[in-house]
């Protein structure tokens, strides 16, 4: 119960941060996704089930707020991100650190690939342009915050 309340509190704070700081941090239509960072933190610290359920739930809330894209899109991307992060649960000390970091980046790449692939479906843009102009900058921007935050606040209770 305490854990649930903690997660809800963290979620509300993160949504506030996303809403307040997001527009200020937008560079060429790209902004860091703090909710993805939280989903990954929860996935890594709590495992696959919590990670994917949380990803789905918070994704739906973001989609329902309607401030970005289609209803269900963030839920889909964050479910998979939560599950992927859950695969890393209790593996921090068992995996090669470089491999662990690569998996983390891969999860962020998959998340944005899903978001942009569905959102740009039917738009006259080549995959290369979407990758170079949207996916990679978004991965870099969110990844940067992810690793900086992780440096100061490592995922709890692994």
């Amino acid at each position, binding site marked *: 119960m305490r854990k649930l309340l903690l997660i809800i509190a963290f979620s509300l704070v993160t949504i506030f941060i996303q*809403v*307040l700081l997001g527009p200020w941090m937008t560079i060429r239509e790209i*902004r860091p996704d703090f909710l993805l960072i939280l989903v990954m933190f929860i996935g890594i610290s709590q495992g696959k089930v919590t990670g994917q359920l949380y990803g789905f739930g918070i994704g739906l809330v*973001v989609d329902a707020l309607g401030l970005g894209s*289609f209803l*269900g899109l963030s839920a889909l991307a964050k*479910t998979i991100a939560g*599950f992927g992060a859950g695969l890393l649960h209790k593996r921090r000390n068992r995996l090669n650190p470089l491999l662990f970091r690569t998996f983390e980046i891969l999860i962020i790449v998959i998340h944005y690939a899903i978001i942009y692939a569905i*959102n740009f479906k039917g738009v006259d843009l080549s995959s290369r342009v979407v990758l170079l102009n949207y996916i990679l900058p978004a991965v870099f921007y969110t990844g940067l915050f992810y690793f900086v935050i992780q440096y100061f606040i490592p995922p709890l209770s692994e």
Partner: protein
Amino acid sequence: MWLKVIRFLIDLYEYFLLILLIILSFVILSKNNSPQVRILQGEIADVFAFIHYPGVWIDNLSNLMHENQELKEENLRLALLNAQLKESYIENQRLREMLSFADTSHLTILPAEVINQGTTPLYNSIMINVGSKHAITPNMAVITNKGIVGKTVSVGDNNTLVQIFLDVNFRLGVKFQISREYGIMSWQPNGLAEVREIAKTAVIYPGEKVLTSGYSEIYPPNIMVGEVIDVRQSANNLFQIATVRPSVNINSIEEVFVVLKK
């Protein structure tokens, strides 16, 4: 045997849950255009609208002094303009009567404040602080004094989501003010817009104003959309493509008007 199968399934429940959630997400995605989903989205947005208010409050506070000065200047400018417009209006009425034209400029508009410009990396909707209680319905045009902003999509009691013209799926029927050519405008990744499939023989001028065509049930005619900054031939050399710089800067809008009745 059955026990082994059940145990096997239990062992894989995390994966079944993942598949279930993915299917559920796709089902929700496929229902995006249904009115029920739009209503639900509006209702939930209404509940969570409080999240945006601290940001709006901070923004308002920091902009207050600057805005006050600007408003004073604007007030003076408008007072001068008003005198000119009164003269023009009288002249216009006289000419209309002479030509037996009916007055067609009967837009009923409702002012609204922009309370958020997006939480996700994608940036294609804004939320405004009016809703069904203020007679807002989906598919109403949203404009500013500088031009088109977008249209209402999901309506809650007190808040409404507006699809802005920077949305990848946004299309708008437009006309060029001088050449009188018509076309469909769509978003481009560089923040500009393009009007494609303009006849090769049409003469479009850079700097020419682009207005709403009026062939829409949503957008009133002759609302400013932007300005042509470049005209080029299409790849197959059959048409021309005009690049348009939108007249409204979405990043800086704070107030908008919803067109209640054309």
